[in-house]
């Protein structure tokens, strides 16, 4: 499957990319802030979006409000655990919320839940 990763932390993006490639997936796009996220989600053909909620320039929630899910699967990644945010993410079409820090197995499980 083809993934887009949105996270301001370059180490996290690299670690997740390596984990996804180990699972046999491809990373076809990356972004580290709101503007890049909107652009890469709008212009890239992908299957699953991994979206960090705290990014510079606007939140992951703002990104989804702007571009929607484009009928793709979205996994939100966050250290936040707020009922209001969880409900809003589900309303916006997120299929799984992955809490930080997460393991390789938790990432794998999140992907399985979504497909």
């Amino acid at each position, binding site marked *: 499957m083809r993934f887009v990763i949105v996270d301001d*932390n370059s180490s996290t993006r690299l670690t997740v990319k390596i984990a996804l490639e180990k699972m046999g997936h491809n990373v076809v796009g990356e972004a580290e802030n709101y503007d890049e996220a909107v652009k890469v989600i709008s212009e890239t053909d992908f299957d699953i979006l991994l979206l960090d*909620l*705290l990014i510079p320039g606007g939140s992951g929630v703002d990104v989804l409000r702007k571009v929607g899910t484009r009928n793709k699967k979205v996994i939100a990644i966050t*250290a936040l*655990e*707020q009922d*209001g*945010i969880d409900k809003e993410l589900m309303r916006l079409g997120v299929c799984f919320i992955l809490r*930080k*820090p997460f393991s390789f197995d938790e990432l794998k499980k999140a992907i399985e839940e979504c497909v």
Partner: protein
Amino acid sequence: MKEKIDALKNLVSAGLLKSTERLNKVSSFRWKVLDVSFELSRKDYESVCVYLISKNYDKLAFLLFIKKEDASKIFKIFSGYYLSDSFEYKKSYELLISEIGNIMLNSVLSEIANRLSKIIIPDVPRIINGEKKFILENISGMLEENKSKVPLSATVLVESENDKLSIELYFFIENGVIEKL
């Protein structure tokens, strides 16, 4: 008000407990909440500080302090190396400490948001290096109506086989928010 302040202490404890449980899943350190109190420590030291200020709810500011030498130890145990002069080392080190701050501070923020039945999305956590006292003064000075804010501190103990480190956290929360808890 005492009831409300007790409620706040309970929320901070609950948030920190959740975050330490999460960190214990992925770390060879043992993370443990040691103390939550309104006694602010006067100890000053060279620190690495991660702080966050809420984006849509500008009455909260949370800070996490780690002694500079302890931050290096934490990084060394997570990554297995210590190359303090290299640019790449510094970048990775700051990203790791920032992520630890992100997890701990946002766990507490989430407990408060849930209690208030609000959505509170903070800015991306920021990291700065310097003397704790200087950073505290500057960040608390940046906050509007700082005098009406209640500072609360907490200490988290981090243990590895050979070391015991402590992390200090400070929460500036406006009286008006505490009254709604």
